[in-house]
């Protein structure tokens, strides 16, 4: 009887203890924790807003512009206006003194229209509407960067996963290939690749963009492979992998269903930070005329209009043609880095004191 009593009493205690745990400990899913930590940082929220803005601008913007004004990416607007052309020259006259010669003439220009209510940012040297082209440029930049990052991640996961899981000579072989690719000088090689692609006549201009993506992927996959390999080497030693092993699942299943998902936080962070990097590479190539081919719009090639070796006129007098594109690049890259940093802190709060 007495024993019975004690048992009853014990059970009562347990129930109480359990309910007290529920009372005292907040049950929050890991995803929610990450989201909360992410949204608590002002920089992450700022980055998210910046990226949302760029996305709306690039993907919804063209729709609105088409709908209201009917503008297209490569539509030429000829807006006639009279422009004063003043040229000066110094010369030494017969009396030995220096004179300045002014020549003022008026010409009719149809391109390079200044900002107006029809063309908020004016038109460029080819008569294209700058605002519209900024939107299409963003569309192609974002599309390229996302596709490249996804491809890089897939290739990186496959090679890093194999290297990390199998170890030994597989690891050695894959990692030496990774080292080799990582030691290639990226911008010069990208230039060579793009130059080669644009010189091959059998490749139609509109397909060049795919080759561009392929070459960007080729230069970037090694980072992902290293991350995945490192993580897997670490995770392999964890107890739960031992547990998985005792159930006798196949190696491939083990790598891609148990190990790779655990590298996701790191991969998401590196992919987010990588997006900005791809945008910078793409715009550099476009700036040099080796990226998105004309007449398609690209932010880089819009800034190239200001290249002083083509004359100072646009650099000095038409900031409306190149400054917005530059600002958009900075906003996009910065937005991705803010988000990436915020995600890293949110996933791994150890660095936060």
């Amino acid at each position, binding site marked *: 009887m007495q024993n019975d009593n004690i048992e009853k009493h014990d059970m009562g*205690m347990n129930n109480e203890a359990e309910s007290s745990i529920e009372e005292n400990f*907040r*049950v929050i899913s890991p995803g929610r924790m990450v989201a909360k930590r992410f949204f608590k940082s002002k920089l992450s929220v700022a980055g998210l807003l910046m990226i949302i803005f760029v996305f709306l601008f690039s993907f919804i913007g063209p729709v609105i512009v088409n709908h209201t004004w009917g503008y297209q990416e490569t539509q030429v607007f000829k807006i006639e206006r009279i422009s004063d052309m003043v040229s000066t020259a110094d010369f030494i006259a017969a009396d030995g003194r220096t004179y300045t010669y002014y020549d003022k003439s008026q010409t009719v220009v149809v391109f390079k229209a200044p900002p107006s209510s029809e063309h908020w940012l004016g038109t460029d040297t080819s008569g294209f509407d700058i605002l519209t082209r900024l939107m299409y440029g963003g569309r192609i930049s974002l599309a390229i960067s996302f596709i490249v990052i996804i491809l890089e991640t897939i290739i990186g996961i496959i090679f890093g996963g194999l290297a990390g899981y199998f170890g030994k000579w597989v690891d050695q072989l894959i990692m030496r290939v990774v080292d080799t690719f990582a030691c290639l000088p990226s911008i010069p090689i990208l230039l060579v690749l793009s130059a080669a692609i644009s010189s091959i006549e059998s490749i139609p201009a509109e397909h060049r963009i795919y080759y561009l993506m392929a070459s960007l992927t080729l230069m970037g996959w090694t980072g992902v492979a290293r991350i995945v390999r490192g993580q897997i080497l670490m995770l392999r030693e964890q107890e739960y992998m031992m547990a998985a092993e005792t159930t006798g699942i196949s190696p491939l299943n083990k790598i891609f269903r148990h190990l790779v998902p655990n590298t996701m936080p790191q991969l998401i962070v590196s992919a987010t930070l990588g997006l900005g990097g791809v945008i910078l590479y793409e715009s550099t190539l476009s700036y040099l005329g080796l990226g998105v081919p004309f007449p398609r719009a690209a932010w880089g090639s819009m800034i190239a209009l200001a290249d002083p070796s083509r004359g100072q006129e646009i650099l000095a007098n038409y900031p409306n043609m190149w400054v917005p594109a530059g600002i958009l690049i900075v906003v996009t890259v910065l937005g991705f880095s803010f988000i990436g940093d915020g995600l890293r802190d949110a996933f791994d709060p150890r660095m936060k004191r």
Partner: protein
Amino acid sequence: MGMMKIFKRKKIQGIDDTHYLTLKEEIRISKENNKIIRQFERRKARRNVDESEYLTQMRDPSNVVEFDELHTYFYTEVGTVKAVNGVSFDIPEGKIIGVVGESGCGKSVTSLSLMQLVQAPQGQIVSGSIRYKASDGKCYDVTKMPTSEMLKIRGKDIAMIFQEPMTSLNPVFRIGEQMDEVVLLHDSSATPESARKRSIEMLNLVGIAMADKVYSSYPHELSGGMRQRVMIAMALSCDPRLIIADEPTTALDVTIQAQILDLLRSVMNRINGSIMLITHDLGVIAEMADEVVVMYAGRIIEKGSVREIFHNPRHPYTIGLMKSKPGKATQGERLYSIKGQVPNPINMPDHCYFYNRCDHRMEICSKAYPEMLQFSPTHFSSCYLYDENKVGDTKNVKESE
């Protein structure tokens, strides 16, 4: 680990969600925290503070340190953690005081408060006082001292030995450099040569053979036990009046533990200093301490001499601790463990913190927090079980079940 999950706020059925803090609440908390923290930090950073502001009187001149109603809080993102919640005890001169309790009970934070080394900016001493008697007879309130003044006490009068000898020494400085630094800092008459002599003398004192060689080694070249000896030597080099030893043997090999403890005791006897020994190991306490303070969830629940605590424990928690000591159990018997868990440090209940786990709980225990009761000149405990005024008029919960 899909991204979608992060943005979906799904209510999981059956799980109590009332304690979930929304983003807005958390932002409000961190804003409030920042405000409070800034005030505390500003006070600590003041310079040229008049001495009278932190001079005070000891209650008992035979004490080195007196903790009086110390409250040290951590202002975290999810709320205020009252790590030390009204702690009072004395450290008499030449005595070894053991502080026991499970991890997270606030014993380390208490000692760090004495050094003003609580992890700032989140951790702050909120109220109460820590009186410290210097060798010249002056008495300071550490909680009110600005950091610049505190620097003169740290390492000189009060030295500290940490739990992890492997990581507590700077890996890029030689042992000698790290030891000389303390001497040169606190002894204005010291020269590099005299500091070196002193350091080697200290290394010899803590039983390191080939002190010269150790003097010029890097920490990674020494074993854990050796490093802990170095830490002790470093702590001793300015003849401290008090050494705080925070779990000094926990990370060490069992065979080394006893050696280190013996060393610590013999050395302190020689210079007639006190030790505040923090540990969760009751064996260490029994062997070393003169008096014991038992902490639970940021409060002292019992204190007394070693004999009183070990032979006549009063508080149910202390009784449980004694019972759960391995070696007490006879063969075949299960090792005793105290059921349940420490309450969440945020939103501590108003009643006794041990209430949920206590075998002897009564109705009154869910009311106000019990006061300290005195059993002998040195033995105190806070539990209603022994409160004659209140036991009579309340029914034991256990009986009513």
